[in-house]
């Protein structure tokens, strides 16, 4: 039986980052996931920490923030680990479709409800939205595409909005994916560009739903900007996320090119543990169950949505290795009385507690599995959703876990 240096379980941004980092160091890597990871649902920008105000220097402020939050996953990676992982991520996206900061810190990206969200690295298709003003921007919605409500965006951004009909295309099945694939066709985006231009009244920027092509977003941007004579930007909307899909596709392409074995669509159903080490995992592809063995494993299965954590009526468990999960004492304490409140729901801080090496530990701090590391949102002591730090935690801990696994 083939034996791997590293098996990564989970295809979210943490798992993808870990697999790439390990492959670049020459390791023989298998990545296995039950489906496309959560990056295809929510991935748009790379957010590090929302509470650092725009205009502030990220390195200095985040370094101080980490010092004040010693249990946060960032405390394991430090700024140096975050910076290294951002570099690795950006190396996957050469020009023209790059991920960059606007200025030295966070910038504010318009969203699908017309709010602004603090983000760190923006894809080239979103930078023009930063600094938009009500008078210089027009928001374009598409009739029949219900997951982007242009009028909601323009109402709250206080700018002009129009809804365009797509000639010759019915409304049936008008999904983000279908639209993005149409945008990949030059003739389609040219017609859309013309339709937008006919509606403009001197605006310098055009905001569109984030559907500017699956495979060639930079070309789509170029066409639309040439026709409209304005800067064009994408606005994040309801899942699935086309910009996230681009990230996923780019990782998959790079991983396969680097010789990583990419096994998608089947869950890992069992892990065999002996004397503090994982010996093998079982991947279930009915009716076949296949066993895979590696020196090291990275558990990047996400939280509840990804299946990394599971909650029954009594408690929260980690279903694969049955690791202890840091969690509130009882179900009644998982969530607060109100949906929106200043502090995150206590359940968000639940997760796997690890040592400095990202190896899961028990309540006494003893390492439970010497060759298993946890990475990404499954880790305890973060509030990634409200904190706007999901991608940062994923890539920083994914990168670190791979590095530690290979140096062990």
């Amino acid at each position, binding site marked *: 039986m083939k034996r791997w240096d590293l098996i990564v379980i989970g295809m979210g941004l943490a798992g993808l980052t870990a697999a790439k980092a390990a492959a670049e160091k020459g390791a023989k890597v298998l990545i296995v996931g039950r489906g496309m990871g959560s990056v295809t649902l929510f991935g748009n920008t790379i957010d590090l920490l929302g509470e650092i105000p725009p205009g502030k220097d990220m390195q200095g402020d985040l370094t101080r923030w980490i010092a004040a939050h010693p249990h946060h996953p960032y405390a394991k990676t430090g700024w140096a680990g975050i910076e290294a992982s951002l570099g690795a991520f950006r190396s996957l996206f050469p020009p023209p479709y790059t991920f960059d900061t606007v200025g030295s810190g966070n910038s504010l990206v318009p969203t699908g409800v017309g709010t602004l969200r603090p983000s760190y690295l923006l894809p080239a298709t979103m930078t023009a939205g930063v600094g938009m003003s009500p008078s210089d921007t027009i928001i374009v919605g598409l009739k029949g595409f219900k997951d982007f409500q242009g009028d909601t965006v323009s109402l709250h951004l*206080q700018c002009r909005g129009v809804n365009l009909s797509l000639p010759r295309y*019915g409304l049936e099945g008008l999904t983000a994916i279908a639209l993005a694939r149409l945008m990949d066709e030059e003739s389609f985006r040219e017609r859309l560009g013309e339709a937008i231009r006919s509606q403009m009244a001197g605006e310098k920027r055009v905001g569109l739903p984030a559907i500017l092509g699956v495979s060639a977003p930079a070309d789509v941007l170029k066409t639309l900007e040439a026709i409209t004579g304005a800067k064009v930007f994408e606005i994040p909307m309801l899942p699935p996320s086309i910009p996230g899909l681009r990230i996923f596709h780019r990782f998959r392409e790079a991983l396969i090119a680097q010789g990583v074995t990419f096994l998608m669509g089947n869950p890992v159903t069992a892990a065999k543990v002996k004397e503090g080490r994982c010996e093998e995992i079982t991947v279930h592809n009915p009716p076949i169950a296949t066993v895979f063995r590696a020196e090291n494993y990275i558990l990047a299965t996400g939280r509840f949505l990804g299946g990394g954590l599971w909650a029954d009526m009594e408690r929260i468990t980690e279903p694969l290795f049955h690791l202890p999960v840091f969690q509130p004492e009882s179900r009644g304490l998982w969530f607060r009385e109100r949906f929106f409140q200043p502090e995150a729901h206590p359940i968000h801080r639940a997760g796997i507690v690890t040592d400095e090496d990202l190896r899961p530990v028990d309540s006494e701090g003893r390492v439970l599995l010497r060759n298993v590391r946890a990475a990404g949102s499954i880790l305890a002591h973060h509030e990634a959703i409200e904190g706007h730090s999901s991608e940062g935690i994923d890539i920083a801990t994914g990168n670190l876990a791979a590095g530690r696994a290979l140096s062990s």
Partner: protein
Amino acid sequence: MDLKTEVLIIGGGATGAGISRDLALRGIPSLLVEKGDFTSGASGRNQGLLHSGARYAVSDLEAAKECIIENRILRRIAPHCIEDTDGLFVSLPEDGTEYRATFLRACAEAGIDTLPLSPREALSMEPKLNPRLIGAVQVPDGAIDPFTLVVENARDAESRGARFLLHTEVTGLIRDGLRITGVRAKDRITGNEFTIAAPWVINATGAWANQILAFAGLTIGMALSKGSMLITNTRLSERVINRCRPPASGDIIVPNDTVSILGTTSLRVEDLEHYEVTPEEVSFLVEELSKVIPAIREERFTRAYAGVRPLVQLAGVSDDREISRGFALIDHGSVDGLTGLITITGGKLMTYRLMAEKTADFICERLGLHVPCITHSQPLPGAGRGHTLKDRLLRLRHQIPASRGELLCDCELVPRETIDAILREGKVRELQDILHRTRLAKGTCQGGFCVYRLLGVLNEMRKETVLGGSNRALRDFLEERWKGIRPVLWGTSLKEEELIESIYKGLFNLAPEATLPPGGGDL
């Protein structure tokens, strides 16, 4: 704006709407004020059970007789609000056979048809039942849609001259010596205050009865009992399933369209505006009812909710389940010496028509009119309309091609046309009014996706000013949704909640308004 009416009805539940219709059919004009939407109180927060009366047969024979009579009347006048499911009273080994014998005798005495079934027969009819059951009895229970029932009563009344003011709260009673001559009222959306003059004021506010009476310094003996319920993601049984044992908490499962409703609990409450379903109640209902249908333990729940039963209180009874579910019609003229004010409370959804009849009889008597009640024989306006799930899906088949597939709600198949039609009618005043009148947001995601789309449609139609601004409405909706969903967050529901939080708090950066992060919230 000051108004006048012959009879003023306070409360837009089944009782109030029923009285409005009964009076209208007798030619008496009325005006109804309701502080929220129709069925905001217990009428909209119950199990939707069309009682056969069997549940009360042993403990309260009179209530059982009332129920079966009203059951037959409602099947006649409101067939489009009813699903004729039948019901089973299931005996588990721990329930024994003694109660079952008593139960069968009591049902016979109350005039309720029963059909005893063997365990095998019961299991072939309802395969998800606990296979350990020792017997079952079939009774004519059913499922009823209270919202449609109330709206249909109001629609019929309105077509006969009755008037309705929703989102209008009574803020005081106007008194002239020993007479109530009207009320002070406030529009809760515009804030406009005005008076309504009326020689007769009917307090049909259910659990809120004492809040209205307090304006006149009066009070009646009433216990407030909270009942909590859980909605499943799938329909567990074809029929209503009851435990064949003395009435207790956690003993009934009512099918409702494509889902089932588990109930109930009974806990005293004092504060009518702040009560919630506790984790203990949820655990109890799941534990107790999984004895009847074991699959409940693995079932996904979409929502929990609670209603407050107004129970007219008799001295010396300690258990709320022993307090009569009967109703009380109180003439404050003869009881308290304050003429022109009547309170009708207690009772249950099943007897709303009877309560309305008795109230209208009283008003007629005082007005010196001799017009008989005809609500027991006069069908509601939509009574001929097909109303089953099949009818609804068939109608959709015709609607969806017309909209070219623009479904706002994928879970419950609500096309955009439905919303356009409601807005054209012009009666809705806030987001929740729209949600009450459609199946939007009632499915698995509980509005997580479709309300964003609905608000977009409203913004497109420039309705946002009427509805209070769209992101505020979105926040309010998510907060209201939270009340129902928080108690059932585990398993698959919890997974979905991570999705919803990731969208609204993560991706869209909606934050509590008091603590907007940099750039968060509205501009």
